[in-house]
């Protein structure tokens, strides 16, 4: 019984820490904001120049308004079904991309000589937070429809775009010597 209570407390503490982390996050402590863009290296991402544009297109409320104007319930139903499929796919792809970045980071950090525990912990928190939010996004789509998590997915996109830069900053590889 005591173990169960302790596990629940630990879980609660983790969730609170993640919420606090997401709220305290601002542009000044985000490495992406302070990093010189010319020196950053991009990790694999969408072939689009602006990956957030595709996120905006998928969760576009403008499209829904247009379909509603047509005044055909069957069309509205089709739109919601189609967008739901695409939205779920976007979240799945994004989640896979985050996992791949995390995997790469773990592989590279094994060769690093000056790992910063603080930064590594922050990155781990960010990875866990993104994975959690992707799952929440899928749940929101199931409950509230494909357009419901528009703000949430924009938030995911912003943080995911910041991940590669955070990885670059996190350590210096051994091969530098």
């Amino acid at each position, binding site marked *: 019984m005591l173990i169960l209570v302790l596990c629940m407390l630990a879980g609660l503490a983790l969730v609170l820490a993640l919420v606090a982390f997401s709220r305290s996050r601002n542009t000044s402590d985000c490495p992406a904001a302070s990093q010189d863009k010319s020196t950053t290296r991009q990790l694999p991402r969408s072939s689009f120049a602006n990956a957030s544009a595709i996120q905006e297109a998928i969760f576009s409320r403008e499209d829904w308004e247009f379909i509603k104007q047509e005044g055909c319930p069957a069309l509205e139903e*089709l739109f919601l079904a189609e967008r739901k499929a695409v939205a779920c796919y976007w979240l799945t792809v994004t989640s896979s991309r985050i996992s791949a970045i995390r995997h790469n980071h773990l592989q590279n950090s094994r060769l690093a000589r000056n790992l910063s525990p603080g930064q590594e912990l922050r990155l781990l928190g960010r990875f866990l937070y993104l994975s959690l939010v992707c799952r929440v996004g899928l749940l929101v789509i199931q409950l509230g429809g494909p357009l419901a998590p528009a703000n949430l997915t924009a938030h995911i996109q912003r943080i995911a775009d910041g991940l590669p830069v955070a990885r670059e900053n996190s350590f210096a590889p051994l091969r530098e010597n």
Partner: protein
Amino acid sequence: MSSTLLHADARKAYDDLWQRTLAKINGDLNRLIYLASTRDYNSGRYHHAGLETHFGADAVREALETAHRELFEKLTLCSLEELVIQLALYVQCSRETPEELLRTWRTLQPYRVAIPLDVEPLTVHLFLSNLKLALEVLQQRQSRLQDRP
């Protein structure tokens, strides 16, 4: 349209393609279908006999491929309303009747051949989904027109 091409010849071929050919085609969906038609079904390589006499085959291939990808991305990211307009324009320019064309496109989905190579599955998914919706919008409008006394 702006493009990032590696070779100077390809850049020239790209500009020529836009000025002499694509600018004269009405609508981005028409342009996309045209560019897809310059690609060999089996090899996936692009060919344009007229351009190849002035520029090298490689430069022309690069120019056609770039223009194709750019138009595909533009149409994928445009609003559904804009895509319906583009589709209506395509139907209008076609020699087929709207009923016939819509029926064929909804059944056979020939627009799938307009997808460039090496684009992300997510992009393809969104493009096909949007085109399917645009076809249904036009079909609904067409049905309404026919129901009118």
